[in-house]
């Protein structure tokens, strides 16, 4: 175990861990909300994220963004890309709800079956992106969209419009504007969602369905609408996460959702599944723990750290770090 490496790079590891963790947190939000309301693990949420990352990338590509773009232009493009990502992810999330979950929930199918349906949809969504070249060829459209669909299974690079500015130094690590943007976006979005859940009518509806679906229905809460909104919020957050992700890491792929999804899900469970703040805390803790783990044990053990943490938390504190669920007290 390389403690020296950990100490030498402590701040770098911690801060980059928090940044990565912010992305995890935003994705985790989608998992935690759907679980809080439906007690279901939304397996297709990883593809919700993936589509957002592609939307952001395609937007910049369509606007012709490059390292030559002016700063103002770049910022405008990025804002549009954020919007596109959130729109795309939100849309895919609603699609998942409508196609993979709603028919099953209406039939009172057992949860395991809903899981299988979501897994199926996850495959379909990921493969559709991976086969976009063949699909567009089928409709004769591939010429028009050549640069967007060629080599569909390969990495897609995000155009070089992001110009991180070094802001200040902490213990040998230069914190950049990008780091600050990512972290603060995550926190702000969390706060926004938290406020929405607490104060708005729909938010109350979500909490009541999470606590007791039958009584909520008796009180006139439209559970279908509630479920839709839950999926939508999770999708919007995943879209934001996707945008931040491609900004920071510069690349995306049709199958990028999977590992990130599993990690984000781990984060949600870590913080306490069903608990919004838990998603934030879990994400941040996971991001940092992963970094420390890779420093101590070597990079290849990074993922083991994540899963081991997951298993340990579930054994010793199954309700997660923050415990309470979205609706509180789901015994």
């Amino acid at each position: 175990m390389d403690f020296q490496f950990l100490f030498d790079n402590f701040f770098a590891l911690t801060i980059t861990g928090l940044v990565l963790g912010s992305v995890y947190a935003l994705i985790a939000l989608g998992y935690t909300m759907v679980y809080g309301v439906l007690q279901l693990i939304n397996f297709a949420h990883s593809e919700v994220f993936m589509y957002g990352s592609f939307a952001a990338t395609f937007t910049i590509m369509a606007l012709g963004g490059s390292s030559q773009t002016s700063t103002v232009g770049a910022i405008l493009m990025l804002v549009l890309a954020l919007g596109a990502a959130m729109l795309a992810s939100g849309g895919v999330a609603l699609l998942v709800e409508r196609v993979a979950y709603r028919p099953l929930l209406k039939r009172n199918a057992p949860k395991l079956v809903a899981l299988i349906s979501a897994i199926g949809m996850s495959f379909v969504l990921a493969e559709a992106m991976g086969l976009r070249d063949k699909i567009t060829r089928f409709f004769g459209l591939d010429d028009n969209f050549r640069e967007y669909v060629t080599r569909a299974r390969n990495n897609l690079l995000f155009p070089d419009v992001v110009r991180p500015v070094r802001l200040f130094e902490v213990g040998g690590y230069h914190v950049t504007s990008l780091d600050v943007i990512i972290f603060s976006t995550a926190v702000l979005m969390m706060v926004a969602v938290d406020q929405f859940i607490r104060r708005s009518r729909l938010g109350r509806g979500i909490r009541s369905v999470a606590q007791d679906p039958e009584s909520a229905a008796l009180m006139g809460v439209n559970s279908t609408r509630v479920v839709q909104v839950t999926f939508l919020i999770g999708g919007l957050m995943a879209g934001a996460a996707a945008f931040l992700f491609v900004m920071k890491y510069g690349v995306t792929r049709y199958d990028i959702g999977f590992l990130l999804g599993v990690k984000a899900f781990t984060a949600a469970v870590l913080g306490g599944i069903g608990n919004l703040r838990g998603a934030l805390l879990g994400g941040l803790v996971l991001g940092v723990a992963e970094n420390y783990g890779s420093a101590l044990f070597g990079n290849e053990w990074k993922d083991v750290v994540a899963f081991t943490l997951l298993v340990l938390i579930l054994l010793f504190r199954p309700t997660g770090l923050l415990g309470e669920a979205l609706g509180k007290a789901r015994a």
Partner: protein
Amino acid sequence: MSTMKLGKVSGVMRSFGDRVNGLSKTTKIIATVLIAFFFYILPLLEPPLISTPGSDFGAVMFTVATYALVALGLNIVVGYAGLLDLGYVGFYAVGAYTVGVLTTYHAHWPFLLVVPVAVVAAMISGVILGAPTLRVRGDYLAIVTLGFGEIVRLIANNTAWLGEAGGINQIGKPPNVEMFEVPHLNWDSGTPLLDLNDKTTVVQFGISDQIPYYWLALTIVIIVLFADRLIKDSRVGRAWEATREDEDAAELMGVPTFRYKLLAFAMGAFIGGLSGALYATKTSFINPESFVLILSILFVAAVVVGGQGNRWGVIVGAALVAYLPERFRGFEEWRILVFGVALMILATYRPEGLLPPRRTVRARQLEAEIDALEEGLDEGSPA
């Protein structure tokens, strides 16, 4: 609506089942032997519509058999005991790696001697996993098992004495007992002809001919089927069912539920490890990529799609999951997409699985009868 259709289909199947049960014992035994024999010679027959064009039919049948074994094991955990395990590939990997390590990588024990060790190792891992985790609630169990499956793979990937990413090759084979050769059928001319150039030695575990491995796997599947029946139809099976139905009530009726859940886990691990051992010896080469999370999902899908709780149903599910992608290899690129669509359709329109266990069929019929009664009352018949 769908319960009505289910009622008709399962009504037909029930009468088939009743007719089967009505046959005399001798008839049943003869029929069983004939059917088993058919499955043994199936890869030799190379039937035109069923055999797989792009890949070796024997190898595909082997995959079907090992998946069937896995499905039977997972069926005990998920279908009988009602425990959601999303990390079953972990047991599969333990079995495979034990064989790899003990037959070539660090020792040169004969394969047949290693198999019991592999199976015990898998069982121990099952108990180690189960002991702390079976106390937690259902969904959490799913997540923990998922984590376990991944941890096993990652450890294999990062540990030198397990071969790391490179894996282990030249894995030991079962002993040969070369007795005679059997020719395959050849349908190229439209009619079946004996192809004396294409023969399988009984029994030679070589590199190119996969059929003997299939026979070994098939034999084990048959043994496990018998064992499954014996165990299910006893207080063990009853304890599992009661635990699955209502764990607290079961415990209050004297069932040591935790012990039985752990037993289900151990049984599942045993069978999973056995299947992994077979896989290792047949492919001669294993690496961590052979044991990815997706495989666990595939296994669960096979069980759920086939009909969790029904040993024949899960075999059907396994066969579909293993066979269909190979059969339609020409559509290589589209395989996973189509698989995803198939999962969604099956989950939506046949959530109980293709061959649900009798209890589900009867429960659904009951619901249908109650619904019919209620509708009858609503339609204004004076109370």
